[in-house]
């Protein structure tokens, strides 16, 4: 109890106090173990519809009854245990019975009726049996639950008890079957399309009712349609993992960086274009083959290879097979999951060889190839690279 934050404790105490009709301070004190639990005021507990005031007490929190002293506890010794037990059993049977009836009356699956009754009972502070009886159309809840509930408040306590107890497994079941689709059986004309849409839903969830549905006497088989209440996805299409990461707002942090890069690049291109004139040689002439004939610089590495190897190898096999298919296959060949440079020495070495290799070949092609694509020293024989014609002839 000690490690529960004060505000949470307070909220819980308030809820409990409201449900029990006790002052908040008292409940809070009880929770903190500062004051002996006080029995609920008899006036509140006595009237027949009210005994359930105590019902919310065995909330899910009932799993640790020791730490959460129930207001009823001090009275418990007074009410002999043997009395409570049969009462519980009786109420259990009654609730089941009523549930069946209520379900039949409404033409709804029991599970839904039960859930709805429980919720209603909780919010109204009435025993579930009462609600169920109402639903079943039996005006007098007394018929089922009253005999034991009416006379003594102490005895009425067990009556609502089965409800939360029964609710627990129901909840557990829902958690265990997350892919379930809750469906509601409704007697309806076959033409009603209210439910059939559900089956058309693309979600992977199965159209199953969590629990068997009691056949409805009033509605002939085949006329029942199903209405989709909710779809609980077993697994999202996308894995939405919300690992805590250090994030910043795109605006302004990323946008400013991008905008700066954009401006810098524009400035650079404009500057380059003012300084360097793009080449325009004489008009194309099929009869005047320049010597040497060079490909665009990004293909010069290939042209260089071409001058070493058989063209069948250098011209096609190298660029298309290794260059394209090979490159596309990199992620599928390199199955090493690590991105740490120290774990990927081999991959980094290969890529660096590729990088330096292609850079070297390109530089040789650009600077060191002269007439007839023969080897030439740029400082001795000049540069044969027309792309930068006006630049290399810059005097």
């Amino acid at each position: 109890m000690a490690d529960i934050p004060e505000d949470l404790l307070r909220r819980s105490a308030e809820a409990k106090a409201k449900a029990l009709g006790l002052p908040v301070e008292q409940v809070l004190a009880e929770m903190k173990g500062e004051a002996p639990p006080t029995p609920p005021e008899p006036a509140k507990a006595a009237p027949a519809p009210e005994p359930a005031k105590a019902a919310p007490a065995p909330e899910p929190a009932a799993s640790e009854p020791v730490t959460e002293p129930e207001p009823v506890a001090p009275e418990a010794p007074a009410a002999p245990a043997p009395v409570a037990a049969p009462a519980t059993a009786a109420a259990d049977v009654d609730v089941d019975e009523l549930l069946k009836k209520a379900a039949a009356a409404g033409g709804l699956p029991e599970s839904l009726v039960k859930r709805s009754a429980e919720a209603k009972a909780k919010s109204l502070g009435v025993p579930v049996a009462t609600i169920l009886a109402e639903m079943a159309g039996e005006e007098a809840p007394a018929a089922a639950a009253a005999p034991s509930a009416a006379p003594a408040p102490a005895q009425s306590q067990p009556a609502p008890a089965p409800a939360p107890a029964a609710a627990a497994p129901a909840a557990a079941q829902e958690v265990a079957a997350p892919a379930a689709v809750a469906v509601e059986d409704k007697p309806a004309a076959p033409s009603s399309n209210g439910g059939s849409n559900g089956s058309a839903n693309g979600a992977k969830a199965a159209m199953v009712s969590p629990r068997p549905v009691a056949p409805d006497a009033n509605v002939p088989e085949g006329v029942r349609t199903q209405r989709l209440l909710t779809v609980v996805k077993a697994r999202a299409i996308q894995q939405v993992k919300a690992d805590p990461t250090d994030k910043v707002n795109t605006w302004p942090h990323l946008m400013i960086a991008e905008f700066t890069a954009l401006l810098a690049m524009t400035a650079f291109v404009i500057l380059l274009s003012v300084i360097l004139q793009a080449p325009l040689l004489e008009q194309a002439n099929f009869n005047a083959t320049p010597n040497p004939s060079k490909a665009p610089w990004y293909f010069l590495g290939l042209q260089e290879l071409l001058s070493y190897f058989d063209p069948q190898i250098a011209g096609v096999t190298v660029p298309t097979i290794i260059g394209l298919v090979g490159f596309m296959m990199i992620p599928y060949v390199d199955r090493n999951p690590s991105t740490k440079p120290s774990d990927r020495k081999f991959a980094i070495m290969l890529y660096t060889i590729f990088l330096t290799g292609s850079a070297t070949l390109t530089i040789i092609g650009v600077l060191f190839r002269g007439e007839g694509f023969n080897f030439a020293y740029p400082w001795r024989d000049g540069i044969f690279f027309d792309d930068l014609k006006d630049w290399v002839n810059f005097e």
Partner: protein
Amino acid sequence: MANGNTSLRERLSEATDKLASSSFVESVLRPGSPFKKGYSDSPRNRSYVIMNNVLYHLHPVKVKRHGVKLSYTLCLGGLSFFLFILLTITGIFLMFYYAPTVENAYTDVAALSTSVAFGSLVRNMHRWGAHLMVLVVFLHMSRVFYHGAYKPPREFNWVVGVILLLLTLLLSFTGYLLPWDQLALWAVTVGTNMAGFVPVFGAQVKFALLAGAEVTAGTILRWYVLHVLFFPFIIVLFMAVHFWRVRKDGGISGPL
């Protein structure tokens, strides 16, 4: 107002205020726009700026802090994209002055330097920008490799990237022919000769590329259409997939 003594400055600010709160401007600017009246800088508004912006198609509201660091991506992917935009803009300008025929191509390009305002500058920007884009895309690929950023779940985006590299080279190469000077003609001849070495269908590939056995008048038109329409269209499609996958694969890859 009646006395007509308001200063120009006052009238101006009044006018801009009126404009900013006019229903037309209201309809143009989405809620949260920093250009809207009364915009204030708050975390909520910072999110709104992106959410209510067409850039939301490209950027999420928040990004990993290390991804913003210039030293991580070096902005190379973004610059590749930006160079493509720059090339599109300058390219459209050039299209107004260029006819892809043997008779006109060369003189049209030459005329850019002599009789078109900013013609030379724009042509230079288009040409150097194209070379730069090849380089930047290549560097982008290298940065991705050294970061191991192609590893799961980003394998497929690497494949898309290789296609983008190929398309970038093809765009550049098809543009190379268009000035129809000696450089263009013979560089393309050398390049397509390499394609001619394709085993089995080498001759057919070369024929399809050149619209003939060698570079001809038909080649210009063919490469022009490929250059200004076909490849840009395809590359935009692949870029869309590429950017989309960057986000779907969880944003920029983690730090090393």
